[in-house]
């Protein structure tokens, strides 16, 4: 059994598709328990029985469409017109724009490629140090992961529900829980930006420019308001919000602004659905592997073992953070979610950690993992995109890394921040 586990790990490390690794481990488990392997297909079919999954293709398509249109440009211009006059204005613009954009597109590196390319030259041009600017755009690539309607928040709720131990954890609860921790990160980074740019000259606020920027972005402006307002007020179910978003973005970018031609539309649809297929096929098979774990009673076994080694909740949380940070540098967020949540959640509940809080801790770690040296994925994407050596990026992101680490500690040890909006 250990031999097979190691063999699967090696196959994964050498690049076998993750879904095949998960499927193989589920099938091996069921095979050893003498259970008919068609259970894997039965579990996979549950994809067609979960209403919330509809949101995933719809939001993903909307995100792809937005990033292919002129929306990133308009978003940057608008935030700059509104916030550019502040000390550190442009830096704050970048943070806010990236956070918003990531919430809608997921942290798949799209933010760095689509927005970073606009922001980095603007930042250096405005006199920000090169390393500061590099650090900012790289860090911002995963900022916004905690804000609705980011896919990882949805996926965490879906996976946690599957375990049947997390009470009534819902996507709505995750959306609410992410707000304050996300704002905390944003605030700390804003503080750092203001401090770093204290010697730069201030730009003046131009109401003309602001007005013209608002006018230009008039079609996209209602989007976050309608979608987020709709979700947070409870007016829309998640999948409805996703439908409205996809439909609205489609109509605006293709038929009203005409920045994307009908001829290019199928290619964009296809590209976005390739990502969706990749994610959902993993999710579907991880339902099977999770089902095997439950069938074999492994989560409670694991908890008993770990509880013998780690006695206090505090120690557990410290170890959890270290583990997740390392994991986050190696796995992309979707893989980490489907692989680790089924194992970690029962343990965390055993230590008295709230399932919603655990989700926020998990995602906050993953967010930092994206640019944790030496192998965080966004470090490489930024290095490639801005043609800078990876070593320079390690250095450039260091202050940002430390600040978010501080935020992570606050989020981890102060559950109130994650839970107050959920419980109110």
């Amino acid at each position, binding site marked *: 059994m250990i031999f097979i586990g190691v063999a699967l790990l090696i196959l994964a490390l050498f*690049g076998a598709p993750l879904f095949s690794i998960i499927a193989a481990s589920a099938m091996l488990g069921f095979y050893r328990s003498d259970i008919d392997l068609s259970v894997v297909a039965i579990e996979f*079919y549950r994809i067609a029985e979960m209403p919330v999954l509809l949101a995933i293709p719809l939001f993903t398509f909307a995100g792809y469409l937005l990033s292919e249109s002129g929306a990133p440009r308009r978003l940057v211009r608008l935030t700059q017109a509104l916030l550019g006059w502040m000390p550190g204005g442009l830096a704050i613009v970048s943070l806010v724009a990236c956070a918003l954009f990531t919430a809608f597109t997921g942290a798949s590196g799209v933010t760095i490629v689509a927005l970073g390319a606009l922001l980095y030259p603007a930042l250096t041009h405005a006199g920000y140090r090169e390393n500061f600017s590099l650090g900012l755009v790289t860090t911002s690539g995963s900022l916004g992961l905690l804000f609705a309607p980011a896919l990882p928040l949805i996926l965490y709720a879906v996976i946690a529900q599957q375990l049947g131990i997390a009470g009534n954890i819902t996507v709505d609860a995750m959306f609410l829980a992410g707000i304050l921790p996300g704002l905390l990160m944003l605030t700390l980074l804003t503080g750092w930006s203001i401090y770093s740019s204290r010697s730069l000259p201030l730009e003046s606020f131009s109401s003309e420019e602001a007005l013209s920027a608002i006018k230009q972005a008039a079609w996209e402006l209602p989007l976050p308001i309608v979608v987020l307002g709709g979700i947070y007020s409870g007016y829309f179910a998640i999948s409805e919000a996703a439908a409205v978003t996809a439909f609205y973005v489609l109509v605006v970018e293709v038929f009203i602004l005409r920045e994307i031609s009908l001829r290019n539309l199928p290619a964009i*649809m296809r590209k976005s*659905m*390739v990502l*969706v*297929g990749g994610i959902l096929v993993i999710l579907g098979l991880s339902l099977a592997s999770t089902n095997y774990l439950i069938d074999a009673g492994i989560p409670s076994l694991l908890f008993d073992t770990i509880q013998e080694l780690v006695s206090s909740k505090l120690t557990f949380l410290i170890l959890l953070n270290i583990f997740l940070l390392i994991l986050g540098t190696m*796995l992309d967020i979707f893989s980490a979610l489907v692989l680790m949540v089924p194992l970690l959640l029962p343990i965390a509940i055993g230590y008295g950690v709230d399932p919603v809080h655990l989700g926020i801790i998990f995602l906050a770690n993953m967010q930092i993992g994206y640019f944790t040296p030496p192998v965080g994925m966004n470090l490489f994407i930024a290095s490639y995109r801005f043609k800078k050596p990876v070593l320079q990026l390690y250095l450039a992101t260091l202050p940002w890394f430390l600040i978010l680490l501080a935020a992570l500690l606050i989020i981890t040890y102060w559950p109130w921040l994650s839970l107050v909006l959920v419980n109110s």
Partner: protein
Amino acid sequence: MITKLKRLSALLLQMEDLLLTLLLTSMILLATSQILLRNLWDYSLSWGDPTLRLMVLWITLLGAMAATRENNHIRIDLLSRYLSVRARRISSLITDSFASLVCGILAWHAARLVLFEMEDNALFLDTWPIWPFQLIMPIGFGIISLRLLLNALIGNQGQAVS
């Protein structure tokens, strides 16, 4: 003969893309019109949500098929970047054959599930037999398996993921 086969396979690929596009489009339209119907005319389609959920299943498999075509699946893949070209070739031969085998088994068991549902006369919306709507599972995993095998034998044709 070979050109004919090539043309046929190109046609099949186009059909696959077309199906994917049509599915997404009708998903967006159906989901939106449900909201409109409900809010403007107080009317609900009882078949709307179940149909949308089946479409998610179809999108999943069609999307995964396309991802296989482009060699664009999510992988952990920490080691292969340190390999020489030749070693990388061998490693992808092994990993892709492995994944192909796994998908073959998945396709087989998905086919059995469909057969069970057919025997049990399971219904979709209490009206139609559900098994034709489930066929995408065995077919999808079957095609993914074949594509991976092809990839393993003639090397990576698609572009690697960024």
